[in-house]
C-alpha cells in the first residue's frame, strides 16, 4: 500500500487477510488454550455448557491425579526410550540414504528415489495390516524393537534430508576426499555438521511424530508393557458411560505436549534455518 490511498479493493484484501489470520489463530491457538484452561478446572466446570474460557478456580492437583491414574512414569520411560531409539535409528539409516540420493551416482537411483517419494503419499492405513502381519510372524508385537526398527526408515526424513544435503557444494566434499576422508567420514564430519540445521529439523519432526503416535502403537502392542503416553491418556477415558473427566484428560494432554513445546522453543531456530538453508554458505 505504497500510495496510502484506500481503494475498496485494498480494504477488501485487508479484511480478508485479517480474517485468514483470525481463522488460523482460532484453529491453532484456541485448542491449545482450551486444553490448558480445562486442565485446571473442576470436574463440574469442565463439563458445563457452554464451556468457560478461564477456570473460575485453579486446580493444579489435576496433574497429580493424571500422573497417578495414568501410571505416568512407566509410559514416560517407554515414550522417551522408543522416541530416542527411533531418532537414533533414523539418523543411522536415513542420513546415509539421503547422502547417497543427494550426492552419489548409482544405478536405479532415480527409480529408488521415486519409490521414496511415492511412499510419502501412501497412507499408513493402507499398509498397517502388512506391518502387523510381518511383526506377528517375527514375534515383534509388544516389543520395543517392533516399535522402533520399522520406523528407522522414513520416507519423509529421507526426502527432507536429501533436499537439504543437495545444497551443500560438491567442491567441499571433493576437498574432503582429497584430504583422505572415507565416505563415512565425509557424512559424519563434513556433511552432517554443515547441514546441521536440516538434520536437527528432521530430528524434531521425527520426535513429534513418534512422541504423539497413537495409531502404530495401538496396532503393534497388546499390553501396557511397551505402550507410550498417548495410549496412557486413552486409558483415562472411561469405558462405561460414566461422565468423562475432561479436566484429568486435558492434564494428561498437557503433560504429553509439554516436552515437545520446550524442545520446539529450544530448537525452533534450527527449524526456521532449515527452510532457508543454503548449504552452509
Amino acid at each position, binding site marked *: 500500500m505504497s500510495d496510502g490511498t484506500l481503494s475498496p479493493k485494498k480494504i477488501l484484501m485487508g479484511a480478508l487477510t485479517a480474517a485468514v489470520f483470525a481463522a488460523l489463530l482460532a484453529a491453532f491457538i484456541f485448542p491449545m488454550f482450551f486444553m490448558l484452561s480445562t486442565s485446571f478446572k473442576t470436574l463440574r466446570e469442565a463439563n458445563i455448557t457452554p464451556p468457560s474460557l478461564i477456570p473460575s478456580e485453579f486446580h493444579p492437583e489435576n496433574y497429580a491425579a493424571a500422573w497417578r491414574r495414568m501410571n505416568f512414569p512407566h509410559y514416560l520411560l517407554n515414550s522417551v526410550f522408543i522416541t530416542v531409539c527411533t531418532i537414533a535409528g533414523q539418523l543411522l539409516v536415513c542420513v546415509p540414504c539421503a547422502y547417497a540420493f543427494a550426492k552419489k551416482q548409482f544405478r536405479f537411483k532415480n527409480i529408488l528415489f521415486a519409490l521414496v517419494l511415492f511412499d510419502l503419499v501412501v497412507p499408513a492405513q493402507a499398509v498397517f495390516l502388512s506391518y502387523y502381519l510381518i511383526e506377528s510372524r517375527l514375534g515383534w508385537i509388544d516389543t520395543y524393537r517392533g516399535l522402533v526398527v520399522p520406523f528407522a526408515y522414513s520416507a519423509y526424513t529421507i526426502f527432507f534430508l536429501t533436499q537439504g544435503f543437495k545444497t551443500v557444494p560438491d567442491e*567441499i566434499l571433493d576437498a574432503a576426499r582429497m584430504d583422505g576422508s572415507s565416505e563415512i567420514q565425509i557424512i559424519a564430519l563434513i556433511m552432517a555438521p*554443515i547441514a546441521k540445521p536440516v538434520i536437527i529439523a528432521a530430528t524434531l519432526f521425527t520426535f513429534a511424530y513418534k512422541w504423539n503416535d497413537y495409531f502404530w502403537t495401538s496396532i503393534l502392542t497388546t499390553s501396557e508393557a511397551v505402550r507410550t503416553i498417548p495410549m496412557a491418556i486413552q486409558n483415562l477415558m472411561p469405558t462405561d458411560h460414566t461422565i468423562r473427566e475432561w479436566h484429568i484428560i486435558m492434564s494428561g494432554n498437557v503433560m504429553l505436549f509439554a516436552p515437545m513445546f520446550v524442545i520446539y522453543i529450544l530448537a525452533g531456530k534450527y527449524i526456521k534455518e532449515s527452510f532457508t538453508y543454503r548449504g552452509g554458505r
Partner: protein
Amino acid sequence: MPGPHRIKNYGRHGRGDYRPAINSEKRIDAAESMISLKGLKKTYPNGFTAIDNLNLDIQDGSFTVLVGPSGCGKTTFLRMIAGCEECTEGEIFIRGRNITKKAPGDRGVAMVFQNYALYPHMTVEKNISFGLKNYGYGREEIRAILRDVLELVGLLDYAKSKPSSLSGGQRQRVALARAISKSPEVFLMDEPLSNLDARLRVQMRGELIRIHQKIGSTTIYITHDQVEAMTMGDCIAVMNEGAIMQCGSPDEVYNNPANIFTARFIGDPGMNIVAWRDGVSLGFRSSKALLQRPSQFAGLTLNAAVRTREHLGEVYRYTLATARGEEIEIRNDYLLETGRHLAIYIRGENLYAFGADSGRIPTAGLVDDAEI
C-alpha cells in the same frame, strides 16, 4: 631446494602408498616427467565428451598454466588428475606410477578449488589439520606444520577464525595453506584468483609465484586469463574444446604459435589473422603493423579501412576491416580518422602462415610480396 618448513611427504605415517620406491607397479619411460597423461578422455553421463585424447607431460617442479576459454574442459581435466572425476579412457602417471584408479586422497596431489571449498564449520586451523589427521600425523607435527603454513600465507593471527569471518583473499590463502600443508608432489589450482578483485589478484599472483619458488612442488594452474598465464607460467598449455592446442614456454606460445587458435588466444591483443589464398591464412602481431612502407620492403601489404578508434593513453587502439570484411586490430600513436582507407605493411619475418587445417606452416619464400 630446502623447504621453509618441516613438512614431510604425507603418507609417511599415513595410509598413502604412492612412494615410488616401494611401488610394484610398472614404471614407464617418462621418468623425468612428474605427470604424464596418456590418451585421457572424459565423457560425462549425459553423453557429452569434455576431454578427448589428451596427451601431456608435465616436468618436475614446473609451474604449468593450463589456459583456455570458459567451458573448454579445464576443470574437468584437473578433477580427473585429482581423482574427483573418473577417466572414461586413458591413464594418469605421477612419477611413473599409474594412479588412474587411485582414490583422491592417495594420489599425492592437493587442490585449491575455485570457490575455496573450505569447511565452513571448522576454524582455519581445523580446516588445515583435518586432512593431516587423516594422514596420520601426530599432534606435535600438526602444530608445527600449522605454524609454518599459516606463516607462509600470513594468517597466523587467524588460526581460530571461521571461514565466514574472512575476506575472499584470506579464504583463498587458507585454501592455499591447506593444500601446502600436505606437501603434495603436485599442486592443482583451479582459477584460484578468479573470485578476487583486480588489485588483490595481481598481488596474489606474485605471492603464488613466491610460494611456488619456495616450496618447489610441481603445480598445474588453471586460468581462462591469458595475461595470468603469460605472467605466471614457466610452461603454458593452451586448451580448446577438450584438447591441448600447444604446450610450451610463454615465449614459445607467444612467438611461435602452433595453430590459429593459440595465435589468437595468446597475447593482448591476440594475433591478427587474415585469409590469403589456397586456404592459407596469414597472421601478425598488431605491434608489427607499419603504417608507412619501409624501403626494401618484402612482406604483406594489407588494404583496410579504419572502423573504430579507442584512446588507450599512450597509443590508440584501432580496429580495421579488410576488403573481405575481416577484422584486425592495430595499435599506434598516429591519429587516424575512422572511415579512412589505408595500407598497412608487415615485414615477411613478422608474418606467420597457417595451412588449411589451421596448423602452422613455414613462411619462407611464401610471402615476399603479398597484397590483400
